[in-house]
């Protein structure tokens, strides 16, 4: 990573724009989860006593990784802009992939596999889980669609010029 921003070969960097914005998207979704569901709605519990040790460990790692990813993502983004390597269509696709990817990961791995905590307590979980994961999947698929479209347009552009 340290050398990655060094390149002087300016011009849009599609892959890097997508990855950096996916990183920012995932950490923004994680922050939104923390703020909306933990703090504002109070649906999620700070610590669900049934959380197994491995869930606690993965939660600690993921939570810290989210913080570091948000800071790293913003500086990587600033570096892309500084070098003129930012590609807007790929960045948009990456952001959606990051947002949806985190949502689905949280819904399946954290809530169901590791059982870190549930979406809400004292209610029938099925509709909540369905809405949570479906919303994430829609974002994820939209992101993949945009990434494909950006890729095709780029290729078409190259063929025209080439």
């Amino acid at each position, binding site marked *: *990573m*340290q050398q990655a*921003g*060094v*390149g*002087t070969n300016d011009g849009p960097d599609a892959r890097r724009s997508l990855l950096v914005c996916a990183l920012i998207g995932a950490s923004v979704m994680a922050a939104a989860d923390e703020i909306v569901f933990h703090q504002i709605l109070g649906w999620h519990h*700070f*610590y669900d*006593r049934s959380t197994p040790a491995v869930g*606690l*460990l993965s*939660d*600690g*790692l993921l*939570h*810290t*990784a989210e*913080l*570091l990813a948000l*800071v*790293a993502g*913003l*500086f990587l983004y*600033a*570096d892309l802009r*500084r*070098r003129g390597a930012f590609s807007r269509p790929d960045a948009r696709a990456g952001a959606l992939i990051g947002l949806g990817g985190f949502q689905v990961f949280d819904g399946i791995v954290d809530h169901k596999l590791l059982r870190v905590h549930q979406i809400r307590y004292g209610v029938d979980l099925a509709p909540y889980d369905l809405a949570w994961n479906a919303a994430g999947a829609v974002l994820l698929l939209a992101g993949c669609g945009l990434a494909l479209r950006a890729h095709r347009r780029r290729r078409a552009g190259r063929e025209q010029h080439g």
Partner: protein
Amino acid sequence: MTGAHTHPDAAAGTGVYALAAAAAVLLAAAAYAVAAARLRRRGDAWPRRRDASFAAGAAALAWAALGPLPGEPFTAHVCRHLLTGMAAPLLLVLGRPVTLLLRVLPPARARRALTAAGRSRAAALPVLPPVAALADIGGLWLLHRTPLLAAAGERPLLHAAVHAHMLLAGLLFTFAVCRLDPVRRSGGGLGIRGGTLLAAGAAHAVLAKGLYAVPPPGLAVTPGDLRAGAVLMYYGGDAVEIGLALVLAVQWYAATGRTRRRALRRRAAAVHGAA
């Protein structure tokens, strides 16, 4: 903060050790201010934000020693931990005290000796980020997962020793992760420093969440106080980790910017030379 003898604050507040610690902190802050003023008088550039950061770190330490700290006893203990072991070390390290010391010392022997010590193999080990993190977070786990915290509440000297370790280990960790002052460079790449920050942050978060459910052994603490303290520890840790991450990110951004400008200059010179 009166009454119970088992809570972690019984020894703090007005104790002789707390006063001694506050006096030492005041002395360090005064020495820093004098040294910075001396540099500026002789024409050196020394940004004011470094003075402000070091002074804020000293103030945080004095506050942690003398109080009053918010919340019930356990929450107040967590507040003291966040100030002494995390926030104050970051603020003090951002003031680059070692660089200041090196600049203000007479050029000959003292400065050479200190530089050599900083670059020696013996100094390289403790400032290796994983080693420093182990001293810091390992100590924190010991404090909260053995009867040490309960014992420190009853013995003022032990209480003082625990907090001295908290400060020194916090300083070492912050120093090793930030690498703002001149030390031996080996083992201090961005990857290892960032990875250590991630591991230490995770260990801090796991400890805080665990404390929400299970109090430190032997410590008399009300459930409400325990939960408030654990939540404060979790989110307070986040705030300092974001600060540390920002230090690393700014270093990376500046370093890649410098490398890029150099490469562009070289390319321009090559084009110019060819023409």
